[in-house]
């Protein structure tokens, strides 16, 4: 249940942003989540509901935007999306790869009223 840890940290940022922008109500929070993070949407929603209860973010919509895991081969520069957890270049079969995207865990936007 790492979703609870994620939402706890997320909520701290929501509170900070709300303070800076004098928000009295938060309607929507959107996140960018890399597939490598193994985030389970239902668990995220449960955690979000529990943690925001009785706060300005209670009832807010939580939107998750998933980013596929993309790697770049160090040998041939080929970029590919990782499926089924295979981290081998499909072009030249090299295994020395660099992560291009897919490990993100960002808070993108907050929509609210001030």
């Amino acid at each position, binding site marked *: 249940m790492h979703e609870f*840890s994620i939402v706890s940290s997320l909520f701290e940022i929501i509170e900070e942003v709300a303070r800076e*922008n004098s928000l009295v109500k938060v309607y929507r929070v959107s996140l960018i989540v890399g597939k490598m993070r193994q985030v389970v949407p239902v668990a995220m929603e449960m955690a979000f509901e529990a943690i925001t209860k009785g706060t300005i973010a209670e009832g807010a919509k939580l939107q998750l935007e998933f980013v596929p895991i993309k790697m770049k081969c160090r040998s041939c520069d080929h970029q590919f999306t990782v499926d089924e957890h295979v981290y081998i270049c499909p072009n030249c079969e090299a295994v020395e790869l660099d992560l291009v995207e897919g490990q993100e865990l960002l808070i993108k936007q907050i929509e609210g009223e001030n």
Partner: protein
Amino acid sequence: MEITVMKNIFGANAEKAGELRALLKDKKVLMVNLIGSPGAGKTTILEKTIEELNKKYKVAVIEGDVATDRDARRLQKYEIPITLINTDGACHLEALSIEQSLNGFDLDSLDMIFIENVGNLVCPAEFDIGEHAKIAIISVTEGDDKPAKYPLLFRESEAVILNKTDLEQYTNFNRASFMEDVKNLNASIPLFEMSCTKGPNLAPWIQWLEKRLQSL
């Protein structure tokens, strides 16, 4: 109103972890983060490792436990610096609690610090706690499907320890499938096979640690 934030959710933790890693590198202290399921043999491997390293190096341990000091007490006999972090139910350690533990050590006198993370394959892989290397510890009794089920841990780790190999004959552990999954996830990762009860075959693991310390 719509506010664009674009902020890393674990940003504060990542920043602190980066600071700790740099501090330890400066002090020439290698910090290793041991991650595995409950019962995989993390504490036993740590005991054997300390016995071996104690001959030559100054070692300290940070014990992460959800509750109790049992693991920490098991290590008291070695008379090395040990700090215990009880997470009070939390499933992983974070950089801030590691910083507090490090404050209790005399870093100038140490060579290596081992962190025994909370028994769990998901959350500890997620959190950078300032270590130089994460190590995945898996035992054959857990099944060969663990790399496929917990890919982040095997991507993030610098080495894998496969423990309890003496029990392999009594299980349906499919070694070929395990090896293939590990290779697919992290082809160049070294694998150390151990059987802590039958004689752990520590030499390759100890050599790897020494090399890693030198490369700081």
